[in-house]
């Protein structure tokens, strides 16, 4: 259930970037800091226009000279007690890398939209998910949106999760570049009243203040360092139920729901289960509808939260499957598989479950994934389900032999 049928009259056709910028606006951020980079640019342009039109009262927008300074300025602002937002992609996200670890280590609940884009070289502005996946160990919560409505609504959910006192971790809201950021679709733009009802003001217990001088970002030697990491991991554990609660609470206010940590589609009786994240789920669901129409039990598990990794929820969702196939737009080079595939297998290894699993790396650098590709993958996985045998565990989809 995406949009409540009763809300259809509220729908308006806007670009995905606009919907996200609007969501950031109604979240009432104190400080926005961003640097333009394709395909994130429309989000920062829309936010700049909102600022120029006085639509984000009291907000300070810092037009920084790099992504590195964008995230650094938000570190300072969040430590001062401000609600902070940014957006970036690919090369910009990589430039932020050092500061990403720092923001999480200092437990600053920054929310940032990552408009997923491929990594150079070769330079490529089109969509895959290599950029955010490459940041998976920075201590940021990572949520992946399926469509533009979810990408926008996820911004508010992210603030709610990040600012919870049992979490206090930064969050990346990941949306596929161009496929979501530049597409015009009907969405419901959250009004301020609903946003305020859902998202209370940010009131941190500690912040930089001359009246109560505290030190942030001190030196942690070996005698104390481990405990900082331990508490970060505990915060990630704490986030698991809160990601679900944030989705449930959002549904109460808006009627819209996209799943908590994971969400199944035609899943319960499915023999072959596809696992994936991001906008490709739309294509996959269309293909599944065709299979279901002819009586074939194919289903899909959408992964919304990649960090914290919802091992239990995934194990539970896959328990009846005869074969599982993970389709994703990233690769851990040198492992010959995508990160989601690796992590699902790792999470299930010490369980009784012995369902055969295969992985496909697809859509690198924005190459189209069409229903025919998904069908081919499903047909191959059906054989795995029938025989219980895996011929190729992980493979690239659609490699052009003539270019090799």
């Amino acid at each position, binding site marked *: 259930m995406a949009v409540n049928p009763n809300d259809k009259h509220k729908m308006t056709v806007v670009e995905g970037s606009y919907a996200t910028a609007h969501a950031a606006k109604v979240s009432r951020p*104190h*400080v926005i*800091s961003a640097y333009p980079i394709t395909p994130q640019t429309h989000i920062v342009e829309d936010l700049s226009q909102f600022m120029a039109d006085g639509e984000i009262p*009291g*907000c*300070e927008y*810092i*037009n*920084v*000279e*790099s992504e*590195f*300074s*964008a995230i*650094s*300025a*938000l*570190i*300072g*602002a*969040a*430590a*001062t*007690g*401000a609600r*902070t937002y940014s957006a970036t992609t690919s090369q910009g996200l990589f430039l932020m890398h*050092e*500061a990403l670890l*720092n923001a999480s280590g*200092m437990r600053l609940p920054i929310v940032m939209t990552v408009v997923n884009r491929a990594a150079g070289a070769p330079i490529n502005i089109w969509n895959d998910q290599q950029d955010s996946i490459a940041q998976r160990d920075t201590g940021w919560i990572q949520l992946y949106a399926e469509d533009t409505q979810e990408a926008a609504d996820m911004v508010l959910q992210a603030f709610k999760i990040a600012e919870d006192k049992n979490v206090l971790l930064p969050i990346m809201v990941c949306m596929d570049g161009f496929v979501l950021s530049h597409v015009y679709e009907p969405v419901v733009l959250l009004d301020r009243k609903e946003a305020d009802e859902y998202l209370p003001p940010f009131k941190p217990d500690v912040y*930089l*203040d*001359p009246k*109560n*001088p*505290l*030190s*942030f*970002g*001190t*030196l*942690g*030697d070996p005698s*104390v360092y481990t405990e900082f990491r331990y508490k970060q991991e505990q915060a990630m554990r704490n986030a698991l139920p809160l990601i679900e609660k944030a989705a449930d609470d959002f549904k109460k206010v808006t009627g819209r729901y996209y799943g908590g940590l994971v969400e199944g589609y035609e899943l319960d009786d499915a023999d072959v289960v596809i696992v994936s994240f991001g906008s490709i789920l739309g294509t996959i669901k269309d293909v599944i509808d065709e299979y279901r129409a002819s009586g074939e039990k194919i289903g899909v598990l959408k992964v919304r939260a990649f960090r914290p990794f919802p091992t239990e929820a995934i194990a539970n969702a896959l328990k009846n499957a005869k074969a599982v196939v993970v389709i994703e737009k990233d690769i851990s080079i040198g492992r010959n598989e995508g990160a989601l595939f690796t992590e699902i297998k790792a999470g299930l290894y010490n369980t009784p479950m012995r369902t055969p699993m295969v992985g496909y790396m697809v859509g690198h650098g924005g190459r189209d994934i069409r229903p025919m590709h998904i069908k081919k993958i499903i047909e191959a996985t059906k054989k795995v389900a029938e025989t219980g045998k895996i011929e190729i565990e992980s493979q690239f989809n659609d490699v052009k032999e003539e270019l090799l």
Partner: protein
Amino acid sequence: MSDNQPFNLLTPGHNGCAGCCDSLAAKYVLMAVGPDCIVVNPTGCLEVMTTPFPRSAWNVPWIHSLFENGGAVAAGIEAALKSLGRRGNTKVIGIGGDGSTMDIGIGALSGAFERNHDILYVCIDNEAYMNTGVQRSSGTPLYASTSTSPAGSVSYGNNTNKKDMPAIMVAHGSPYVATTSIGYANDMIKKVKKAADVVGSTYIHTHAPCPTGWGFDSSKTIEIAKLAVDCCLWPLYEIENGEVTAVRKVKNPKPVEEYLKAQSRFKHLFKMEGGDKEIEKIQQYADKNIAKYGLDK
């Protein structure tokens, strides 16, 4: 709050070396500005020696993020104070070393100054990466021997002059830029106060001799600092809105040898063949300062 509170904003008991220049400089800054400030301290000796968790020597709100982002973090704090309506008279102050200011952090600092955030930035320049073992920076002067620009049989040491960082900050349109020395505490405190009172991005570049890195006895920090000013290798001036408005005169400039001889980082110049000619180049650098700022007039 006791009457001598301004003197306790950076408390004793931290891990600084005897004769440490950073602790003196930071103390002068806080004496000038007082408790109503937020300090941003990029990675370096000052950060490491004052905040071994769970201890902190700072009695003002303080943040360390990374080595190269002091300017951006300060900008973010200033923006947050504005947005939260908590600005009042609170001054945001960056305090960084020559490495974090002149080298790795110059991009973020340039951005903050170009946007003219209401911040004061103080560079404590001890002319090399002291925290990691005396490697050269763009603040290292000509012929100083450091661990990455060592003197050797075919090298007189660091082969470049100091980067003119104050001039770069003036070029950003900063309303107030001044040079100071920890050898002249009253002058420094007066200028920091003035810089903090100006609205906009203001810059103080303070010369700060490091006994460990420069090779002199820890009792001589102030003496060496004064010598640098007195031989005109470190001119003290103020630049307001691009115009030089004040210069500290040096009536009888001392020869640079006097300054160089007092530090082991220059000792090779007095032993190597041709060293005297190279010292002459350093003297020419001082003479240029004398002419440029009219130091002896």
